[in-house]
């Protein structure tokens, strides 16, 4: 008994993986579709301009894209890894506690049901308009329950742990839990009008506790840090576990992890002000937002460099393993994106970049390159261990990697050019001091870049379909690996 390895229970993790693939495909499909809509507006009315046009219109679909990718694809991916990594780094099996199993299952199914309600409500146009917090009050309550269930799972596993010291990944999961809880609750303080008015109007409608500038300040404190604590910290948690596991290398530096973690925790929350530069929020908040955004390069690069140096002496693995490729390029995109962000947060650059497609480009090199690749790599690592099978096709995985990388490059380069072109045209004056371009001139000029972007998005989507196929074939393959897998994931030709 003593020497037998623990049998970890992956049933909850598997559910989240299926959801990652399912919602990931939907979210990316919708994203690609609306990218083509921007290039060819007639796609907005693909089913005619009658009653159904409401549901194929860019304005309704855009929010479905952002929310399904952030809260569907990414959060499912994060939770899939939590229910895998949590057990392993704490040396407890979910199977040891019935309560934890129930919490995990409830966590998934309530989340799944709420996601379905969210999709319907966003199609109907029930939204608070606040970006990434569009959900009305009943859904906000549902999200709170989901979040608390996850918190219970973290606390429960930690309570039962055999390994006393918390591994770095756990620091980041804990930080994600706490920060998003705080942000979600404070940004969504709202009064349901139906109850406040004694039963008049729509039941789901609410009005924000904050008005105007205050509302903007809270929203972008939330909006920026939702990015931080959904699209960054849990992804750092993932890579801190999976890169050393897959490569068989120890983390390069514990001190660098410490510096990056506590630095990130302290600095990130200040930077929200860079979303409202030149607006009516107090000047000092804007300046703080700018300054802290630049300082943020340090902890961000700290984590990324720690990852890259973990590969020290083992760089041949980048050539030989597509999983390592995904993780190393993911970390590189993290460095890239966390350099680009601070540049855009400098006031004089922001004057050109804000409101343009350059911001969209920035979001996507982070989301597609860093977040997407890291989650894809983690799933490629987990599936063979859960199903005790080798990956169906290494060649397919490598092809997917290159197609998606090409897609990302087309995406961000076209959006850079589009954003800077438009930003410069908006501010151009002729020799008499009049505006040089009408607004529509600055839209029509973007047409080729919108097409290139849509092609880039389509390539990424094609790669994602290859990923789903590869995972499906792996799960359904007959070959079974007997022993517990060490390090490098076995792959078929």
């Amino acid at each position, binding site marked *: 008994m003593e020497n037998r390895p623990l049998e970890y229970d992956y049933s909850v993790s598997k559910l989240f993986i299926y959801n990652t693939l399912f919602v990931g495909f939907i979210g990316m499909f919708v994203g690609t579709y609306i990218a083509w809509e921007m290039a060819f507006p007639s796609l907005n009315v693909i089913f005619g301009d009658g009653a159904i046009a409401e549901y194929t219109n860019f*304005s309704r679909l855009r929010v479905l894209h952002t929310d399904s990718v952030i809260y569907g694809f990414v959060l499912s991916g994060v939770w899939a890894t939590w229910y895998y990594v949590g057990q392993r780094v704490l040396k407890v099996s979910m199977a040891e506690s019935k309560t934890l199993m129930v919490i995990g299952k409830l966590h998934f199914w309530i989340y799944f049901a709420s996601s379905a309600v969210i999709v319907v409500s966003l199609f109907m146009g029930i*939204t608070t308009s606040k970006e990434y917090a569009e959900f009305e009050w009943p859904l906000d309550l549902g999200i709170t329950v989901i979040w608390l269930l996850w918190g219970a799972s973290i606390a429960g596993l930690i309570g039962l742990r055999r390994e006393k010291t918390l591994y770095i990944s756990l620091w980041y999961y804990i930080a994600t839990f706490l920060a998003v809880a705080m942000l979600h609750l404070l940004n969504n303080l709202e009064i349901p009008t139906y109850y406040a008015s004694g039963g008049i109007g729509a039941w789901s409608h609410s009005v924000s506790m904050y008005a105007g*500038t205050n509302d903007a300040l809270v929203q972008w404190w939330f909006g920026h840090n939702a990015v931080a604590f959904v699209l960054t910290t849990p992804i750092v948690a993932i890579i801190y576990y999976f890169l050393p596991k897959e490569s068989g290398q120890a983390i390069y530096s514990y001190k660098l992890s410490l510096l990056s973690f506590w630095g990130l925790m302290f600095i990130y929350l200040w930077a929200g002000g860079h979303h409202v530069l030149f607006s009516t929020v107090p000047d000092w908040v804007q300046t703080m937002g700018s300054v802290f955004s630049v300082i943020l390069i340090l902890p961000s690069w700290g984590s990324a460099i720690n990852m890259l140096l973990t590969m020290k002496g083992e760089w041949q693995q980048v050539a030989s393993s597509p999983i390592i490729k995904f993780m190393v390029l993911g970390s590189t995109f993290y460095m890239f994106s966390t350099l680009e962000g601070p540049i855009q947060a400098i006031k004089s650059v922001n004057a050109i970049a804000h409101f343009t497609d350059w911001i969209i480009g920035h979001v996507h090199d982070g989301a597609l390159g860093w977040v997407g690749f890291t989650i894809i790599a983690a799933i490629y690592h987990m599936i063979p261990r859960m199903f005790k099978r080798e990956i169906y096709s290494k060649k397919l995985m490598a092809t997917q990697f290159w197609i998606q990388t090409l897609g990302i490059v087309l995406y961000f380069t076209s959006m850079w050019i589009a954003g800077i072109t438009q930003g410069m045209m908006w501010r151009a004056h002729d020799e008499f001091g009049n505006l040089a371009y009408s607004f529509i001139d600055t839209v029509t000029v973007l047409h080729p870049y919108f097409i290139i972007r849509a092609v880039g998005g389509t390539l990424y989507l094609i790669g994602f379909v290859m990923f789903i196929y590869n995972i499906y074939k792996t799960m359904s393959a007959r070959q079974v690996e007997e022993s517990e897998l060490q390090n490098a994931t076995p792959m078929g030709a």
Partner: protein
Amino acid sequence: MFHWLEKNPFFFALAVFVTIAFAGLVEIVPNFAQQSRPLIGTTPYSTLELAGRHVYIKNSCNACHSQLIRPFKSETDRYGDYSLSGEYAYDRPFLWGSKRTGPDLMRVGNYRTTDWHENHMWDPEKVVPGTIMPAYRWMFVNNTDIDTAYAEMLTIEKFFGVPYNKPVPMKDGTTKIIKMGATLNEARMMALEEAITISHDMKNQDVIDAVALGRIPEIVALIAYMNSLK
């Protein structure tokens, strides 16, 4: 210290929470102590305007249009005076947006008319050749939800003291009263009166007929809101 924290999850979580909550406390709390106050001349939204604002939000107009004019010559030339904090005092939620796929709308009421909006929402390409904005024809059919707008007015008056039925100071020294219905029926009547005025400047026969029968299509409310943005 860090080694100790990493073995004591409760204190670890506490330390993380204090570290992340710090910035919010410093940045947000002082700003709230000094609440955003309305400028002289800034009035609350009327029933129909507020309902139109809901139509704007329902269709995520804010995904492509900003309502924030930055203090640059190019922006004030294009859109009018730069935005001031007090102008947003009655905006719950704020609608600054984060992307200008289309132009800013902060002061669109100054330079576009009911007629322009009607044509543009029906067929944008005809009004602005080369535009990538889609048509919003369902707004000419769907009914406006006046009841929810009224419920919101009651709520914001009760909880935030929004001055409905009270004199609001205007720039020229006079005062203006934005009325709120005492009952739901009165609110519906008032919204319909506003809608009738707007429909006089419209030519879509279905919309005119609907208003004559006491129904308010979403497009009418949206135009009321657009016209109020000055």
